């Protein structure tokens, strides 16, 4: 119990050290993201977002990105996008190549062709 609490506190502290300089840029103003998200616990979600941001940044590092690049990449995401990515980088589609497109297209065309002439 105590150690999980300590871990949570540590994570918050790490997240704060990393992201705070960006968050306090406009002290006192409520950000536009709060309007867009319509969240019911704005303070809590701000802290949670900081944690997810540092989580996603370290997950990106695990997939071969260096720390400062990972941080820049996360910084250009919205809170919603960060939440969506968190913990799912392994399983989400990653657009890569098109080596098989011709094959698939040919298969589909042949199927469509066969069906076309069959129906005529």
């Amino acid at each position: 119990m105590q150690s999980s609490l300590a871990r949570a506190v540590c994570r918050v502290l790490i997240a704060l050290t990393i992201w705070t300089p960006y968050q306090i840029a406009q002290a006192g103003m409520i950000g536009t993201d709060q309007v867009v998200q319509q969240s019911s616990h704005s303070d809590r979600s701000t802290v949670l977002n900081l944690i997810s941001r540092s989580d996603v940044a370290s997950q990106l590092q695990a997939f071969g990105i260096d720390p400062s690049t990972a941080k820049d990449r996360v910084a250009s995401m919205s809170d919603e996008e960060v939440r969506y990515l968190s913990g799912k980088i392994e399983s989400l589609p990653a657009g890569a190549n098109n080596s098989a497109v011709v094959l698939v297209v040919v298969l589909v065309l042949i199927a469509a062709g066969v069906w076309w002439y069959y129906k005529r």
Partner: protein
Amino acid sequence: MVLQALARLKAERNARFAAGVFVCGLALLASGCASLFPQTAELRDGLPEGMPEQVELKQVPFFPQVEYQCGPAALATALVAAGAKVTPEELVPQVYLPERKGSLQVEMLAAARRHGMVSYLLAPRFVDLLRELSAGNPVIVLQDQSPLGTWHYAVAVGYDYDAGDLILRSGERERQKLPFYVHEFLWRRSGYWAMVVVPPDRVPATADEARWLGSIAALERAGGAREARTAYQKFLERWPQNTGASIGLANAHHALGELPQAERVLREAARRDPESVIVLNNLAQTLSDQNRDAEALPFIERAAALGGPHAAAVDQTRQAILGRLAARRKN
């Protein structure tokens, strides 16, 4: 080659698009065709009014992809078409994920913001894709070629409704023509994922009010206050009653140090929407930042009285203003 030959053969027969879909419709019950290409089937009813039968954005550049890097190539295509100066190589460290040998959808959306553009995720509708093309916006689509291949980004740059073809920049092919139903077959498993990238002074043809606001807010959050300011202004020309956009515009002004402009926007918003806690809080803060704490006080008191999810932030602003007033009285 085989594809082209087949397509030509098909064209020489009576393969007019409408006829094709009509036959498809006839065979629907037997073959389950419409369930394979539901949106292509819907398109047979005709294009929405005012849309041309043929569109091709010939000025959209072509960057042939290198190895697995169709993400950077597709994104560069759309960004350069929108007016950014960037190459696929520069985008590799911004969207490519080495261990996945590919690029994630979220990162495609996010990276465009680093070049001062607004990225917008389209609704999963074929007709929306065509509508963006007819408005001059190339569309990045995610196709699924598994189990034989894998996920692939391509950029749609045109269509020919009569022939039933979509025209794409794809991989190493500068001008790939895919029949609508083939494209739908490849596209549907990504949930019809498609995005556009537009400069901040333009609104996508299919923009939905709430989601477009979210796209601009994401650009603002990513550090593009100057571009977001332009985008919010355009947004308010189209939807002048939107309080969220006013808040965004004021925040962009505030971030750029344009406090009188932020104040003007927020006062206008407070007139329209006097119950908005965020408007009141930000107006009070903007006045306080101009050393007008006495003027700010009634606004922040009203915000505090309204309560709601931002009560803690409002209370902080209120304490700060009260503190500054007390300090001034002492001096």
